[in-house]
């Protein structure tokens, strides 16, 4: 873990630290081709999580008539946020050295960065891309909550504003040296910034947009579990880039993150299947897939802070808590979070952020802070993220509803399906 300490510092993990200005390489920094190789790889893995990972995971779960609309919403996130990130997003998240809440426009269009610029031991361009792939998947995670009913124009406007107003500031607070970094709350790879932010925003959006017509009456079974399993698999594979890549190096820290990610995910999958088997009599494929994703979400903030045994605890806990959220809480409260974004990402992300404190290993614990202290910091960051995400998302949606004259397609289009109504296409052609 040679590099891990410095990495940890630059990611704002160990309390108030001298902040790293992303455009200026440390005097002693030189490019490490191994670290660079791994982060190049990690970056494309995180893109693969969205395309085709998330697209298929969600795409398989909606009804056939809305399948393409889900794929399209993932594609457009890669397109629109891909451009936005280079234009201003990166600067808003990682610029503005010393700002507590958001960055600035000093690096708009990546101004000042050249192919020779380094961020730690990797080219800054590579860091920009790695982070950019996070910015692409995070808003796309939300689409599962209001799937099968939101207008494409509303979705596109929503994610653009959401990245500017919710995502970039949160990334700045946690990873760009803002107040959560200074506080010393731990969020290695995005339990707060990615999963809680999207999960809580998604819940707000699902409720604000309203239920699907026929929800609770008509059956809305998945159109293709094989697609969902492919998606789950590629999310899992890609997540090693997400978590172990967040070490920004190919070192012991990355190795630890890889191991805890795999272990928590396997444990959560297994636990979910067992719970379901006991509770409902049958172990299901969708249960296994959901368990895998819940495990991946939960370990994300904790992946360099826990031991192998700790990873098992994080995973098993995620299975219990997310299973309860999805199968008990949602029906009890009656909201229509179509694909359980809140139950998996919101709840799983919050659990992971808390578990980072609960199960923190000795090697990761700041002795001065102590486990109890760390837990308090985690809780503070969790509470803030939940409130910030919900309030800002509702504000954006409120404005958009006024401007666009409504967020959802009309009833006939919902019947017909978004694929035809919004995109003039159908997923499958005639049989011959």
């Amino acid at each position, binding site marked *: 873990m040679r590099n891990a300490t410095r990495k940890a510092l630059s990611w704002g993990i160990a309390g108030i630290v001298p902040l790293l200005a992303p455009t200026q390489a440390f005097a002693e920094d030189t490019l490490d081709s191994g670290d660079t190789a791994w982060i190049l790889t990690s970056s494309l893995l995180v893109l693969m999580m969205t395309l085709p990972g998330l697209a298929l995971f969600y795409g398989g779960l909606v009804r056939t008539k809305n399948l393409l609309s889900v794929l399209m919403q993932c594609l457009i996130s890669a397109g629109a946020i891909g451009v936005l990130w280079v234009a201003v997003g990166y600067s808003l998240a990682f610029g503005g050295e010393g700002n507590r809440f958001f960055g600035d426009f000093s690096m708009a269009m990546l101004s000042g960065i050249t192919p020779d610029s380094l961020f730690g031991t990797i080219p800054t361009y590579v860091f920009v891309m790695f982070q950019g792939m996070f910015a692409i998947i995070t808003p796309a995670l939300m689409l599962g909550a209001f799937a099968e009913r939101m207008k494409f124009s509303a979705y596109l406007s929503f994610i653009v504003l959401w990245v500017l107003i919710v995502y970039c500031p949160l990334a700045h607070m946690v990873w760009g040296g803002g107040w959560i970094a200074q506080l010393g709350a731990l969020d290695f790879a995005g339990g707060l910034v990615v999963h809680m932010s999207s999960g809580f925003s998604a819940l707000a959006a699902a409720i604000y947009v309203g239920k699907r017509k026929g929800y609770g009456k*008509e059956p809305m079974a998945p159109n293709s579990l094989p697609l969902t399993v492919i998606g789950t698999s590629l999310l899992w594979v890609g997540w090693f880039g997400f978590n172990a890549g967040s070490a920004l190096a190919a070192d012991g820290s990355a190795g630890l993150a890889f191991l805890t990610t795999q272990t928590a995910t396997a444990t959560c999958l297994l636990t979910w299947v067992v719970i379901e088997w006991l509770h409902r009599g049958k172990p299901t494929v969708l249960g296994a897939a959901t368990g895998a994703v819940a495990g991946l979400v939960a370990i994300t903030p904790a992946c360099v802070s826990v031991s192998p045994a700790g990873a098992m605890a994080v995973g098993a806990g995620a299975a219990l808590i997310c299973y309860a959220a999805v199968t008990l809480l949602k029906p009890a409260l009656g909201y229509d979070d179509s694909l359980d974004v809140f139950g998996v990402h919101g709840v799983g992300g919050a659990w992971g952020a808390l578990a980072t404190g609960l199960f923190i290993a000795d090697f990761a614990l700041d002795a001065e802070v102590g486990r109890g202290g760390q837990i308090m910091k985690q809780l503070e960051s969790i509470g803030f993220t939940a409130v910030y995400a919900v309030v800002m998302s509702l504000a954006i949606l409120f404005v958009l509803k006024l401007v666009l004259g409504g967020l959802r397609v009309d009833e006939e289009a919902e*019947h*017909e399906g978004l694929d*035809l109504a919004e995109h*003039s*296409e*159908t997923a499958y052609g005639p049989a011959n």
Partner: protein
Amino acid sequence: MQLIEAIIKPFKLDEVRDALQQVGVQGLTVTEVKGYGRQKGHTELYRGAEYVVDLLPKVLVEVVVADGDVERVVEAIVAAASTGKIGDGKIFVHPVEEVIRIRTGERGEAAL
């Protein structure tokens, strides 16, 4: 006995089935079909090429009932399947000469 064939909009299937159950129908057979009629189709767009699709998804419900039940069943279907918009579909009534239950070999109304 008569065979009632109802061609309806797919999303009306659940309502029609409920309605039929309420008038005492105990069995029916459903087929996915495509229908062409007065209802306007839609246009699909693939790289600029437009395909006009005027064979629209419909569901065909087949029920065989005793002669005396035909009118009641037809009315139940009409009530449940109607939206008032073009394309609601048709009901065709055909004669049936014989019905056999495969499991028991029973014939006629007893086999329904």
